């Protein structure tokens, strides 16, 4: 469980706050999307969760432990992070070395380590690349190795900071379905920073930040219901949301805000055309 109580953050020597008075509780096993325009504080929020940034005021608690300069190393064992550019995250000369790095830091015994490396590479379907050089992999493969490094630590929480924004559609699908699987099978808490509302719609809950404060916190469907208001916070309603709005304006009755075009089309079939 992650709790933020009255959390504010500002960078040293900067006058204005990046985040201001954030109060949030994220339960174990939740999937939370974080959206908002550039500079709204999304990445900072993500970094506050594992002590890459420490709150200027207020309290961050992970599993009831207050996050401080001292406790952050302990807490990082529970929270894994994957960033936008996987290259910034590579340290090893082979894929296996890279996955081993975090475990070495934890002084995990060698045998357990080997087991965990194999297991996590298996999970991301990268076993065949175990001895390859990370820098020569494709973007999607790199990001899966980054995920394997995080998985090897067996974290309870995975934080993804725009982890798919550099990937092509296939790479994105690979990473997202992997996350879905981890979430469902292992009950891993997923916190996903993204600009893509279609991606955020996969979450159970979406938090929208605007200028360092929480503008919205609720179900993806409720966020999409805001329609054109989304522009105010730098977001673009998905194509399906715009079509849905157009249809309701033309007085078609559709029971719920669609998350996906297939959902809308199927609904229209059920409501109007099925005989």
């Amino acid at each position, binding site marked *: 469980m992650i709790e933020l109580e009255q959390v504010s953050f500002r960078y040293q020597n900067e006058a204005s706050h990046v985040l201001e008075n954030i109060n949030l509780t994220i339960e174990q096993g939740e999937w939370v999307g974080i959206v908002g325009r*550039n*500079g709204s504080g999304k990445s900072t929020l993500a970094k506050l969760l594992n002590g890459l940034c420490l709150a200027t005021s207020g309290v961050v608690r992970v599993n009831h432990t207050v996050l401080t300069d001292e406790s952050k190393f302990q807490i990082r064992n529970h929270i894994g992070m994957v960033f936008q550019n996987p290259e910034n995250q590579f340290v090893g000369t082979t894929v296996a070395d890279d996955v081993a790095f975090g475990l070495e830091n934890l002084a995990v015994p060698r045998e357990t380590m080997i087991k965990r490396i194999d297991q996590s590479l298996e999970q991301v379907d990268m076993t065949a690349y175990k001895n390859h050089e990370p820098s020569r992999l*494709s973007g999607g493969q790199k990001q899966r190795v980054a995920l394997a490094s995080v998985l090897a630590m067996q974290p309870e929480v995975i934080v993804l900071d725009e982890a798919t924004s550099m990937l092509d559609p*296939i*790479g994105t699908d690979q990473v997202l379905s992997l996350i879905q699987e981890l979430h469902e099978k292992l009950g891993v808490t997923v916190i996903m920073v993204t600009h893509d509302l279609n991606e955020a719609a996969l979450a159970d809950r979406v938090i929208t930040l605007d200028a360092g404060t929480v503008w919205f916190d609720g179900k993806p469907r409720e966020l999409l219901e805001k329609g054109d208001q989304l522009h105010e916070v730098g977001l673009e309603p998905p194509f399906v949301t715009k*079509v849905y709005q157009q249809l309701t304006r033309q007085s078609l009755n559709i029971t719920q805000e669609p998350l996906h*075009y297939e959902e809308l089309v199927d609904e*229209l079939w059920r409501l109007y055309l099925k005989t």
Partner: protein
Amino acid sequence: MEIVFKDVDYIYQPNTPLEHVALQGLSFTIPSQSFTAIVGRTGSGKSTLLQQLNGLLQPTSGTVTIGKTRLPGAKAKPLKELRRRVGLVFQYPEHQLFEETVKQELLFGPKNFGLDLGQVEAWLPQVLQDVGLDESVLERSPFTLSGGQMKRVALASVLILDSEVLVLDEPTAGLDPVGKKQLLQLFRYLNEEKGKMVVLVTHNMEDAMANADQLLVLNNGCIESVTSPKRLIEKRDQLEAIGLAPPESIKFVDYMTQTLGVNWNEHEATVDTVSQALIKRIKAGANK
């Protein structure tokens, strides 16, 4: 200025065990003042290709002719001149930023190319405005900026050279949708009003189709096709076969024609055309 590729191969570390053929037999023309998108999966050779556009990499065999400069074989001076005329914005802005302040960063190129600094400084506010940055960033270190802001600084540092050709590698990845729209508008403006050639490298078919007049599809280091957005939509099965996804609007249309038997003969899939087609279908259904 026109760019012509003729039988271009590019091989990384040739004649070593690590030899890797990145580009193979590329021949195509990018007309001057055009808006061309180069699309393809990660690893298809896009980034290698774009580095040939200003001589950062030169063909292993074949030739690239950019205006009057022909590669390989150009001397240092025309090569430097080429780099001023062809501005390149990298995928990861942090790879191209290095100065202590944003202002120094922006003045580095003009200084290096011997431009009139007084003039450049007078022009700074306009460039910042174009890319959507506040003037207050000028005194900040580029490394304290957010990813989106860094991206804009990298773009500004190229725009300030007033190059004839802009080569942009995934310029909008990581930007919020509103910022993304603004930048795409800016690229279109620079192309249409200022006559600049824009080469957009992306795996986002939505952006490519909506903005480019010519699309160059790369697959495994080879040209799959050189075509217009409209033509490419007609061949979308091929697109999916090489790992590119058609825009959401097109997938929507495909799904509704399959599932609902909607009669679709519009040229463009917009919110309006799609909604109208759906309404028409529903009305017809009620009468049946």
